[in-house]
């Protein structure tokens, strides 16, 4: 329907930028940053152009479809397309990247004893990663998705391993091996799916549209589902596959951590909605109770550990794990509101994670890079603006009404209540703990008497404020008026629900009015 290959161009632009930045001479670090920022803003512009053309009301779920043969011998196609879910996540990625570049402007010094990489290398890696992130959300071929999914590990591996702090080598290796473990099992399951599709249709395929239509017998589904889900659960990460995340986040630069947790980890939950559910509906239903249990445990486990953490970056990692529990919960309760809520939650979590990590990063940079909570107190006196943004990030993380994270969390809980009232009640308790640890962090670090060595720290600079303002604006705007997101997400979720043959439970009297209001239909 659209002859111009928008998505390919969108993905190619950052790659071109990455190559240009990598080829610059080492003596021009500033130019490298400027070019990287320029390219990321062009990509953002392209994304906006795509989003404006996206038709939310058409019956065609996937738009900007591209289809080319790639490896016919294995039934592999280069096929791209976005539905509302993919579009929202691509938008998230393309918004976060320029913010990260701007916020991390001075994060990478010229090579010294601390880091071994060059400035241009860091920004080239960010742009290369952006290409892969766009690809992973836009692929409609399982093989292509897998290629992006695995290739994505490499830039992150280098970003942690070359540019991270203490323990970077260990954290990078742990991250990569964990992800590879999941990825290799997914590879086996993906090949299994290919073979099964060959048996069912006579010609093996990796095309998502053909795979969704297959009638795979439930026993096979259960086996293959495990392979896919395992990879996504490590990626997201769900309890008990999370142990790599705190190490990776703790060792990474704040910018790397934002991309990793804010965007990359969403590939896990995105994969569950896009691949696990529609291709293996029977298995999804079969495993749903276990996954819901994992999600709920994750909500509490992450929150409790966060409550006891003294390292800010690790604390945010555990808090994210708790949030991923909510996202997975919303997906596997099989209600329209729950799944739409999960998608909104992914977006919201990306924004709030970015705000948290970046403000914390600005703070740490001003205090010898220490990430220990106990090193900070009373920051709001010398640096009120920083403290203000930190408060905003904290409130966004605990889902204050009026912010987009509230919309997501509320919809997820509502969807859960529709299906399992007790699970919903239990998960709601998780919010309380979230509030406890978030406010504890704010109180300890920002209020009280000014800590030693903190009285002289400078407040945020213009560049840093510029990086944070878009997050604040987006969070508030979408929190008050989520319709633009919900309008594109809801049709996509309806398609998923109809593919898996799930129907919303009949509304009970009390929740009818809230339902229609909450989804903006």
């Amino acid at each position: 329907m659209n002859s111009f290959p928008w998505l390919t161009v969108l993905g190619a632009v950052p790659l071109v930028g990455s190559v240009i930045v990598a080829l610059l001479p080492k003596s021009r670090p500033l130019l490298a940053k400027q070019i990287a920022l320029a390219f990321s803003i062009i990509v953002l512009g392209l994304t906006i152009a795509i989003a404006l053309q996206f038709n939310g009301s058409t019956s065609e779920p996937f738009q900007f479809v591209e289809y080319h043969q790639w490896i016919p011998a294995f039934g592999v196609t280069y096929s791209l397309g976005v539905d509302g879910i993919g579009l929202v996540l691509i938008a998230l990625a393309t918004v976060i990247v320029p913010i990260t570049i701007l916020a991390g402007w001075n994060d990478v010094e010229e090579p010294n004893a601390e880091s071994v990489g060059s400035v241009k290398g860091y920004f080239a890696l960010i742009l290369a990663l952006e290409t892969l992130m766009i690809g992973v959300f836009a692929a409609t071929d399982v093989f292509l998705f897998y290629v992006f999914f695995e290739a994505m590990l490499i830039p992150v591996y280098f970003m942690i391993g070359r540019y991270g702090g203490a323990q970077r080598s260990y954290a990078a290796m742990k991250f990569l091996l964990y992800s590879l473990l999941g990825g290799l099992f997914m590879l086996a399951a993906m090949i299994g799916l290919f073979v099964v599709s060959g048996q069912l249709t006579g010609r093996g395929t990796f095309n998502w549209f053909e795979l969704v239509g297959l009638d795979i017998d439930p026993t096979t589904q259960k086996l293959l589902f495990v392979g896919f889900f395992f990879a996504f659960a490590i990626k997201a990460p769900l309890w008990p596959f999370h142990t790599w995340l705190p190490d990776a986040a703790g060792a990474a630069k704040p910018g790397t951590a934002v991309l990793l947790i804010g965007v990359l980890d969403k590939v896990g939950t995105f994969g569950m909605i896009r691949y696990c559910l529609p291709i293996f509906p029977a298995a999804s239903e079969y495993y749903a109770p276990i996954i819901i249990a994992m999600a709920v445990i994750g909500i509490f486990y992450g929150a409790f550990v966060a409550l006891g953490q003294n390292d800010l970056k690790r604390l945010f990692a555990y808090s994210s794990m708790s949030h991923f529990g909510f996202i997975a919960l919303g997906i596997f309760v099989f209600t329209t509101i729950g799944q739409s809520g999960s998608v909104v939650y992914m977006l919201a979590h990306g924004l709030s994670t970015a705000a948290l990590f970046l403000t914390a990063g600005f703070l740490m940079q001003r205090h010898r890079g220490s990430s220990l909570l106990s090193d900070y107190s009373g920051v709001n006196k010398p640096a009120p603006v920083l403290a203000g943004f930190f408060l905003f990030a904290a409130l966004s993380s605990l889902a204050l009404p009026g912010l987009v994270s509230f919309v997501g969390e509320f919809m997820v809980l509502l969807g859960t209540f529709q299906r399992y009232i007790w699970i919903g009640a239990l998960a709601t308790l998780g919010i309380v703990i979230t509030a406890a640890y978030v406010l504890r962090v704010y109180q300890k670090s920002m209020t009280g008497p000014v800590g030693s060595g903190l009285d002289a720290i400078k407040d945020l600079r213009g560049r840093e404020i510029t990086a944070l303002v878009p997050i604040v604006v987006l969070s508030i705007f979408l929190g008050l008026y989520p319709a633009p997101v919900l309008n594109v997400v809801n049709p996509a979720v309806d398609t998923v629900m109809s593919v898996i043959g799930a129907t919303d439970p009949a509304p009970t009297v009390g929740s009818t009015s809230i339902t229609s209001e909450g989804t903006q239909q």
Partner: protein
Amino acid sequence: MNAVVEAVRAVEETPWVMPTLDYKLLAPILIILGAGVVSVLFEALLPRAARRPAQLVLVFVSLVAALVSIIALQGSRSLSGRGALVVDGPGLIMQGTIVIIAILGAMLMAERGLDPSGDAFAARASALPGSEDERQFTARGYFQTEIWPFFLFAVGGMLLFPVANDLLMMFVALEVMSLPLYLLTGMARRRRLLSQEAALKYFVLGAFSSAFFLYGAALLYGYTGTISFPGIAAAVSSTTGQTGLLLVAVALLGAGLLFKIGAAPFHQWTPDVYQGAPTPLTGFMAAAVKIAAFGALLRLFYVALGGMRWDWAPMLWVVAILTMLIGSVIALTQSDIKRMIAYSSIAQAGFILVGVVAATPAGLAGALFYLIAYAFTTIGIFAIIMMVRDENGEATHLSKWAGLGRRSPFVATIFAVFMLSLAGIPLTSGFIGKFSVFTAAIAADDTWLVIVAVIASLIAAFFYLRVVVLMFFTEATDETAEVAVPSVFTTVALAAGATVTVLLGIYPQPLLDLIINAGVFVR
């Protein structure tokens, strides 16, 4: 007693028929072996100064001629030499790859720009290590040009190996390929004692495995009454009952061939030989011997013994699992890059076996693709190992690779790509290779084997990435090696290895088409 006399008389009374040879079909092999003979004459007749240029011209011209004649044979499917040789699609693909790898390997062997005292081979292999003679020869700048006839004969044997269609021809090919390699292994210029020890080990163990092969061949002949593969296939599928002799024969033949591909538990020679042999030779051997030996293994098991897959598959399952796990686990503990790559090659042989066990056209195609991808990556890896040097020659200890990414980002990046390819990360040829053999195995219901392979891949990924960690995430020290600037020979070989590794990862379809169109073995 009478029976024997009868048999002898019967043989004597059979008129001897001159086998009709189709020279066109044999052209690639004849060109290389003929060039080997000419090469020997060069050594005998030419003055010392003229030998190297003459040999190089001869080697490259004959290899290119062989490649052209292989391409000209494309599409042939016929027997030659009364069925002793068979020219078919898979055989030609393997021959073609061997010749291309031989061209690249010869380039590495011809490299003279890296070591200040000469090439990678001893000035005079006959001089005792550390003796006055050796010093004299080195000081006078002697070169051992005898490596070239050895090299050509080895290539000739390799070309014969995957197209041999009876047990005797296969054995001859095995020996023609192996004997020159034993000698070449002992000819390293530096660390000569290590090199000679490796050569002796390789020779003794290799002779042992040849004996296994020969014994197996004799038993199989005893069981089936024929040495030709189609004849064996017919005999195997028609007989029932007493299969004890047959199974022993298959096990012995398998042991002989599995030794050559370095599969566990016949892998013990690999690390010593890889480490001791002159590096360009290691690179050539690691790539080409694997193709040739896998070609022979595939033909033996698919053509001659295809009818008894259910008997040999369990054996190969066990061997594949052992090979993958032993190779990848022991590689974890290696501190020498050449030994690490040796164990990696063992693990890779295990992955290829996963495709072989499938015993389907897809398994054959997958194994072929994997072999080709692996061969080019391996040549590239050894080209870089040759270039990373300190004052004592090649710096093979891994600690000397620390921080190489800062010193020489370009070379280190290429090496990282090779490592990622061997680890099977997408967008490299190694990923497509793994994908094709795993697909074949799952389609043949060997899912559990693939699960083991997946776990082994993960273990293997750890040591491949450890090199990346060393090169990029670690500070350079005083110990860190330098990357020497190579001549055009090594540069071309390295560029070819890197290009193929990336190209096959992004766009593998042309090669897959070639392999699929080549079809299956002629039975």
